[in-house]
């Protein structure tokens, strides 16, 4: 059972993601996480401001339960199933990130420069987290789905719109890493 404490290899991880999608399909639901952000907006009263949020959110309660599970799963994995949490990325990537000022590259699960609690008082890091999160929320709803809804569920169903969205994800990601990061860091 020692393997469970190690990072899971890509073939186990990929299979597990497909299994999660099929379990949701087999209980009559679907795999898509970003829809929960819309549901949460509706619960907070966004329906008073835009029609987009006027829908029966109670029909989406099941997906909020999946989110709750994802939080609990993160806790379990972090507390009980991980001995060494540093992510062993490519040494070239580590060198590259350290040159950009990410000292924690290769030594942590997330970069301290963005996810240490000290960022709450660091205007620049805070601004980057806010901009990143905003784009994820805005873009996911604009595209009608995120990595789970388009890249996994949509591509599994051979949906052309999902392929266009995934190509968009990569165009955006490549622009950010290759052209915008050198300006930011």
């Amino acid at each position, binding site marked *: 059972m020692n393997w469970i404490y190690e*990072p899971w290899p*890509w073939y*186990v*991880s*990929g*299979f597990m*993601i497909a299994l999660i999608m*099929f379990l949701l399909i*087999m*209980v*009559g639901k679907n795999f898509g*996480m970003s829809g*929960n*952000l*819309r549901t949460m907006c509706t619960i907070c009263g966004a329906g008073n401001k835009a029609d987009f949020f006027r829908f029966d959110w109670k029909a989406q309660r099941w*997906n909020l339960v*999946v*989110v709750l599970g*994802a*939080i609990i*799963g*993160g806790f379990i*994995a*972090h507390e009980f*199933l991980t001995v060494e949490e540093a992510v062993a*990325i*490519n040494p070239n*990537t580590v060198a*590259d990130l350290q040159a950009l000022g990410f000292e924690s590259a290769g030594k942590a*699960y997330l970069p301290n420069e*963005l*996810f240490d609690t000290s960022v709450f008082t660091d205007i620049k890091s805070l601004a980057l*987290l806010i*901009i*990143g*999160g905003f*784009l*994820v929320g*805005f*873009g*996911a709803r604009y*595209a*009608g789905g*995120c990595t789970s809804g388009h*890249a996994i*569920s949509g591509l*599994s169903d*051979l*949906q*052309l*719109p999902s392929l*266009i*969205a995934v190509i*968009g*994800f990569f165009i*955006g*990601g*490549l*622009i950010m*890493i290759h052209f915008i990061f050198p300006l930011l860091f």
Partner: protein
Amino acid sequence: MRTIIYLLIGIVFGITMFKSEAASWFRIYEMFKFEAFHMYGIIGVAVITGVIGTFLIKRFRVRSFYGEPIKFYPKEKKVKRYLFGGILFGLGWALAGACPGPMFTLVGAGFTPILVVIAAALAGTFIYGLLKDKLPH
């Protein structure tokens, strides 16, 4: 009962996101630098398994565990919304290093600054809802 099932599926999902390192900012960066196969392997295996399974469900008209027919809904045939929305999502995904599933997993793993990302993602969703009719779709 069904609520317990959704919760268990979510827990397995959260554990998978953390243990696969798909919830790691570093893995997303490395993926966009094309310096490792890891993330491509994960997405590739998930999609190949998904395509085969989805085909079999349709081919044999498999019913859900509760005996209901399984429906797949084709997405609207448009280009702009997927391309523009996708690009904006990709910019954010690479910067925050987390998509809408892993961001919740990271809350459970104890990374409190991810709450800022979630709050901003909710704000982004809300602003999209306000601007929806003015955007090209």
